[in-house]
């Protein structure tokens, strides 16, 4: 029933993309509502009064906020198909740890890559590549962080790929040149329809970033 699940989202948001992928993986129909973050809807303000942020998953009229919390909610409610978290509690703790690592690091460092210059940007570039290296080592020989198929960490991390053109152009580097194994993982994820259909085109995200830079007065 499409009216049971509503997602309040914003098309370039990596956090929103996480929900899109999870819902697609599980074959859940939902109504997608794109928010104008400079003119937030009454529905958004009502469903997320504390943070007023997207994404918000609304299930049978009740909101679940914060993307990683919504992912776990989706996994627990629609638990028959495409599990995101493993059944083993230790492996689950590891998955949560790495998703938390991605949340703590990638967004902020990534943002610095396209909004700062000089020394600050150089430091961000180094930190970003270090983080990718750490994640690459954690992935190891596995095809996905989740093992044989997409898991919690894969869904948490892959949305940032839609922002790689932005990071690489402004940061003047290539993730693939430094970390080819990481890009191999990216490609494996992008082969999945649930992922490729949930991520916007990199060029579109780049145009959006240019718009924001103009708004922020960054030349």
């Amino acid at each position: 029933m499409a009216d049971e699940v509503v997602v309040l989202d914003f098309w370039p948001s990596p956090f929103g993309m996480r929900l899109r992928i999870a819902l697609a993986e599980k074959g859940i129909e939902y109504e997608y509502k794109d928010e104008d973050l400079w003119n937030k809807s009454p529905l958004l303000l009502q469903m997320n009064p504390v943070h007023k942020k997207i994404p918000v998953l609304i299930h049978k009229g009740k909101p679940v906020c914060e993307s990683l919390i919504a992912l776990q909610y989706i996994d627990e409610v629609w638990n028959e198909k495409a599990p995101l978290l493993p059944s083993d509690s230790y492996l689950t703790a590891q998955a949560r740890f790495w998703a938390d690592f991605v949340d703590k690091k990638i967004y902020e460092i990534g943002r610095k890559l396209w909004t700062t210059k000089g020394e600050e940007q150089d430091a961000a570039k180094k930190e970003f590549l270090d983080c990718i290296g750490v994640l690459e080592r954690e992935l190891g020989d596995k095809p996905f962080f989740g093992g044989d198929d997409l898991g919690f960490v894969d869904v948490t991390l892959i949305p940032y790929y839609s922002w790689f053109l932005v990071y690489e152009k402004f940061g003047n580097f290539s993730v693939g040149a430094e970390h080819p194994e990481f890009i191999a993982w990216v490609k494996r994820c992008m082969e999945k329809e649930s992922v490729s259909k949930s991520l916007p085109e990199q060029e579109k995200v780049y145009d959006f970033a240019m718009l924001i830079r103009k708004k922020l007065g960054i030349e």
Partner: protein
Amino acid sequence: MSGESVKLLGYWASPLALRVKWALKLKEIEYQYVEEDLQNKSPLLLRYNPVHKKVPVLVHDGKPVAESLIILEYIDETWKHNPILPQDPYERAQARFWAGFIDEKCVPAIMSAFTNQGEEKEKAAKEARENLKTLESALGGKDFFGGETVGFVDIAAGWIGLWARIVEEIADVNLIDAETMPLLNAWFGRVLEAPVLKECVPPRDKLLEHSRGFHKILTAASS
């Protein structure tokens, strides 16, 4: 369960380590406590938490789990008696939301009130009070966030009752306002006095002295 080893790497003054101690106590899990010297981190800590190098770390049969809220969930999923999180997925999402709110909003504001002076300090204290007031809305008229018994959010937030009052005394700010947040104020008293939890809490005077030392360093650096 026999033949099982549970170790907690912590620091006596760490509120995040206290969260884990509370969870272990509520589940009646026997464990070995290892006190870390944070100025001189042990090879064990660096081996078990190479990414963040922080306490607390729970080591279960040689396998480490880091980050206090992740440890709480691990404990709850591994030892299923005396549940900490509710069963219902929506209730679980709410509990996770408020625990996250504490760490993302309440704690940084309280820390900011502690480390700053003058206008910055007052601004941070006001933000902290607003965030605590928001937290109170999740408690409502219940005895605990978990309902009739201590749950995930109680364990995540209870320590603020002790620490925030120490910040109030040292930095001369108002954080927990008994008038504007009577329910939260009463809950702080209830959770810190709960039999199993009370015995794990570090002594107030020792914590006060320790925090005063920190405050001197932090305010000297910023002035």
